[in-house]
């Protein structure tokens, strides 16, 4: 990587990407790959300091809406080649995702989801509880009522993906500024004109808001109202032990998920239904809670008993950027030229970033309509008839 700078940004650019998370950096990389010169990325902290650096690195195709399945599938195809493409090891490993339910009543829904996934071409299958033991021998299957498995799902190391995209983008001339906060965006005559940072302004015709949980407040600067809200989600790692768990295990009943990283640690989290919904960044509170450690430990020791004497090494919290249908918001808005957002990933923006970025870059550089981006346009909420994905857990 070329040492990252924090001095005043260039006065002009062809495009400014706000946010140095996985979505911002992959979009900048894809824009440069499509030949856009003078792309600038502005990040207020260090690379990956937002949700990306907090995330579990899970990548799965097991969803209940066609758009999510298709996007995830295309993303997996990119991830399979990404280390080679970027010349950077992303530690993408396809150990599969084992989804379990402790509810008899979930069986039909899981079967239906598998059918949809298979129709889209994802190689998932429905499992009886005892079959889970072939995938995770240590699982306490007395609790499991239904399960599905997709061997092509997997995990990658978020920071490696971030650094890989950053390095590849830099090689194509992208200028990345860290520790530089965007404080304003100026539009005039229905066009984006300028991005204002704490270290100077950049005149630009194109902006991409990829600021994760902060996107909503940035969009508001140019009058775009996003329906997003933000939630705290905590996650932890255990000590590293020799490989013993191949897939990511995730329960749609209580929301626990855990996998084993390439460093041997168990990495996992559990959602908390009592967490408040935030819409104002001043409320964001990502301090850690004992409550999470206790809830996670209870759920983990119940479903994966050999973890009992293992140790929790550290825990942290990050933000999910949620939308009403739990699906991302991509594209632009009709009456503001040069404006784009890539946000609202509802806790699965790491896995969808490669494809979201690729399609966004194509839209920005060619202006050609894109079916997936169109289905994820902001106006869908006003138009009604939205379809919610039910497998947002964790």
């Amino acid at each position, binding site marked *: 990587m070329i040492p990252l700078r924090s001095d005043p940004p260039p006065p002009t650019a062809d495009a400014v990407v706000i946010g140095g998370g996985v979505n911002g950096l992959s979009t900048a990389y894809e824009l440069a790959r499509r030949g856009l010169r003078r792309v600038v990325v502005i990040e207020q902290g260090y690379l990956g300091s937002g949700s990306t650096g907090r995330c579990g690195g899970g990548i799965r195709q097991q969803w209940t809406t066609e758009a999510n399945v298709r996007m995830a599938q295309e993303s997996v195809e990119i991830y399979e080649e990404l280390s080679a493409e970027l010349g950077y090891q992303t530690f993408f490993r396809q150990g599969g995702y084992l989804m379990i339910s402790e509810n008899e009543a979930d069986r039909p829904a899981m079967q239906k989801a598998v059918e949809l996934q298979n129709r889209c071409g994802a190689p998932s299958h429905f499992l009886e509880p005892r079959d889970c033991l072939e995938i995770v021998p240590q699982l306490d299957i007395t609790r499991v009522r239904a399960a599905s498995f997709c061997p092509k799902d997997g995990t990658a190391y978020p920071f490696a993906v971030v650094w890989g995209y950053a390095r590849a983008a830099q090689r194509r001339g992208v200028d990345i500024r860290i520790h530089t906060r965007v404080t304003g965006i100026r539009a005039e005559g229905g066009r984006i004109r300028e991005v204002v940072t704490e270290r100077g302004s950049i005149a630009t015709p194109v902006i991409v808001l990829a600021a994760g949980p902060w996107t909503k407040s940035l969009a508001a600067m140019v009058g775009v109202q996003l329906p997003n809200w933000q939630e705290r989600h905590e996650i932890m790692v255990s000590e590293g032990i020799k490989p013993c768990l191949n897939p990511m295990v995730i329960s749609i009943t209580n929301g626990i998920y855990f996998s084993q990283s390439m460093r041997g640690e168990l990495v996992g989290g559990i959602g908390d239904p009592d967490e408040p919904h935030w819409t104002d960044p*001043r409320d*964001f509170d990502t301090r850690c809670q004992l409550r999470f*450690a*206790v809830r996670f430990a209870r759920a983990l020791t119940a479903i994966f008993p050999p973890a009992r004497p293992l140790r929790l090494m550290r825990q942290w919290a990050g933000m999910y950027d949620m939308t009403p249908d739990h699906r991302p918001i991509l594209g632009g808005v009709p009456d503001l030229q040069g404006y784009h957002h890539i946000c609202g990933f509802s806790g699965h923006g790491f896995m969808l970033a490669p494809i979201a970025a690729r399609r966004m870059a194509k839209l920005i550089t060619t202006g050609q309509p894109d079916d997936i981006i169109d289905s994820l346009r902001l106006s869908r909420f006003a138009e009604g008839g939205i379809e919610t994905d039910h497998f947002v857990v964790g």
Partner: protein
Amino acid sequence: MTNPHECMLCRCEDVTLAEFRAAFKEGFTEFESLKRYTGVGTGFCQGKGCLAEAAVELARLRGVAPAEVSLTNIRPPAATLTFSELAALPLTPLIGDSRPDAGDKPAGKEAR
């Protein structure tokens, strides 16, 4: 002179002084990224053995006063706790609820 390849900066993760310096030269000039790239401070002791030393070295590399190198995140807990120990604890309320000044939020409390 001490050979930096033989001087262990982080015992848990086996990171030598030379490796830390090399990562800095490579472009990881800031503590959070250095930590994740080299592994310094992410071992079993969670940095008790190395973070202060690493920060002093980073200040030297950057040519700034140590006080200007901000502390990297050290996350709870402060010692290793087994999952069965944790599972046996009572559930505490959500963090916002247990604060004495829960109603009054002067500024965002961001993750550090």
